[in-house]
């Protein structure tokens, strides 16, 4: 598990992500717990902000490269970068290298960081060999495959594997779990009608699954689906998969009030 046969545990730098930082701190603490429980030391670099994906996907390569450099500088000294998001991890692991020319020394640094950057759940399973997190969760859940994690990083079986090891949990698949929820970052605000139609179809599949809880690995998708579910009046709890895996699913769900409002 430790790099280069050293005795010390791997040092994992947590890339918190903007949405977890602002909307769902529990996911950050769940990530810390999961990685620590798996025998790693977790560091949260204080210089981190955003991975730059919004700029990259808007065509603003200059700002995307500027922010990528900051992430590279901040995180390259650790053994791993881990993010509780397939979208942000996917951006760092697959797109940073596209931002720099071959002759640019930043390219090699981007490649080195990409090689050790992971989405949280696949990191636990594929890199650390975790087979169970020892969590308990009573109820039926359904899992949405977020697009970037699924198609850029191959995250599909790993969360299902760990969820199936959660005591008391039943996983029931919805129709088309691998189809986009319609979030798409700025897409949701630029094309609200379209995004709304797609998330409406998605949440219909969620409701039809009859699961009591919807899980996914990305806050963007989760907020989109939670927002649509509550607007429709559906009584389904929405949580990040890390909350359940870490046994930290006691608080209010995403978009649910403190008094169960």
């Amino acid at each position, binding site marked *: 598990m430790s790099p280069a046969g050293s005795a010390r545990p791997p040092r994992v730098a947590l890339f918190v992500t903007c949405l977890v*930082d*602002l909307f769902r*701190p*529990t*996911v*950050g*603490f769940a990530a810390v717990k999961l990685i620590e429980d798996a025998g790693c030391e977790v560091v949260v670099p*204080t210089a*981190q*902000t*955003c991975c*730059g994906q*919004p*700029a*990259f*996907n*808007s*065509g*603003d*390569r200059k*700002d995307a490269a*500027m*922010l990528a450099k900051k992430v590279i500088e901040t995180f390259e000294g650790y053994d791993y970068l881990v993010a509780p998001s397939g979208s942000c991890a996917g951006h760092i692991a697959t797109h940073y290298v*596209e931002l720099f020319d071959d002759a640019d020394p930043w390219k090699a640094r981007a490649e080195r960081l990409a090689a050790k950057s992971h989405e949280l759940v696949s990191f636990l399973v594929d890199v650390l060999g975790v087979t169970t997190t020892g969590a308990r969760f009573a109820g039926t859940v359904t899992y949405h495959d977020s*697009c*970037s994690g699924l*198609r850029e990083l191959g995250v599909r079986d790993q969360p299902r594997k760990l969820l199936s090891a959660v005591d008391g949990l039943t996983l029931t698949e919805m129709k088309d779990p*691998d*189809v*986009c929820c319609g*979030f*798409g*970052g700025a*897409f949701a*605000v*630029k*094309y*609200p*009608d*379209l*995004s*709304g*139609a*797609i998330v*409406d*179809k998605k949440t219909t599949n969620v409701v039809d699954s009859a699961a009591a809880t919807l899980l996914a690995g990305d806050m963007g998708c989760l*907020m989109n689906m*939670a*927002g*649509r579910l*509550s*607007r429709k009046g559906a009584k389904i709890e929405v949580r990040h998969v890390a909350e359940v895996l870490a046994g930290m699913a006691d*608080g*209010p769900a*995403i*978009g*649910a*009030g*403190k008094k169960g*409002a």
Partner: protein
Amino acid sequence: MQVTSPAFKENAAKALADVTLQKALKNVETGFIAKRAAAAAALPEFEALRDAARDLKNHVLAHLDLYLEAYEKKVVAAGGHVHWAESAEDARRIVTDICKRLGARTVTKGKSMITEEIALNDHLEREGLIPVETDLGEYIIQLRGEHPSHIVAPAVHLTKEQVAGDFRRVHTHLDAARDLTEPVTLLSEARAVLREKFLVADVGITGANFLIAETGTSIIVTNEGNGDLTQTLPKAHIVMASIEKIVPTLEDVDTLLRVLARSATGQEMSVYTTFSTGPRREGDPDGPGEYHVVLLDNGRSAMLGTEFEEMLRCIRCGACMNHCPVFQAVGGHAYGWVYPGPMGAVLTPTLIGVDKAGHLPNASTFCGRCESVCPMRIPLPKMMRAWRNREWERALNPATLRSGLGLWAFVAARPGLYRLAARVSSMALRLLGRGRGRIASLPFFAAGWTKMRDMPAPEGATFMDQWKARAGR
């Protein structure tokens, strides 16, 4: 055809509100996706074939000039004619010149997307000719005065009830009380009507799925056999093909045919795969007296060597649009020109300009499902992003987006400032959430979000603040 791509948003809103269209669009999901998946899964070498198909077309694009010249020689040797058309206007003129020389009146047409691209039917009508679409879907939309909404299934936006209504309106020589509830009845009726047209046609125009340099052969694949009658019965057969359709050898075509039908409709092969090499030879029982190939560039050679070159690998299977959540939601007409869906989002800006088609590469969630099913492994999201880059460079995006992103990037580059901004946003959003945990209505740019859904409120102070507050951390 009229370009309505700049009005994509309005087109999409209209499509979403169109109950009949929404009913018809369900067929896209039920009709294509599971069948493609089953066909791909049934072939152990399918993924390897995709690699081979990609490599093959990359090789062709690197030597396009050589293969096109070799192809031309073979066509001429077989007694055919090759016409080079740099622009849509050139192609239209070439076709009407041939028709006029032959004194043609009725022109039958097999399915061809590039004739849509060059608006050939309108042009033929202006020149006094009668174009008749012979593909069932194309025939239906011609009756309606529409354009294809899908590159493989042109009438997929229609219900069978709508088609029955059109047939009653146009086929007035038939019993008005006839039963048209079953699709097979509609098919038989179209078949009978079209049979007459095939027999009187003077010129037949088809597209080409592939052109083979080794033999000078053009290939079309159809499921109705209409292409065969279109090209063998008239005096002349005109093949309309864009320059990237070329493939080196017969053997190579096999690789592409094996991925094409599986990706398009989930069939192992289309029902008809028709090879045409030159006009009727002495001793042939049938075939056209003349065989012409119009090779259309129309901006494609300018894509070579650019970040959009890989788009020229496209074999027009339609898998990208079948699997696209945006296409599934609004159908093809909303895209506002000939090519819809992800392939259209990349190709249309190259053909009509990103200033007009700018919405198309932006109206994507980048879910990547298109690329995951593309038989030619075309990186469609990457190329849509490349268009967004061009738009950014040319400052074509809305000023609010540009200044908003600029401000955000300024803040994100400064961790201390970012922490402060996150803290203030968290407090403001929690205040708006008022303990309910969500916000039903937000102003300004976020109004788009709350139009269809609530905004979950932050659950507490930011992670970074809480982390810092924990002793010893």
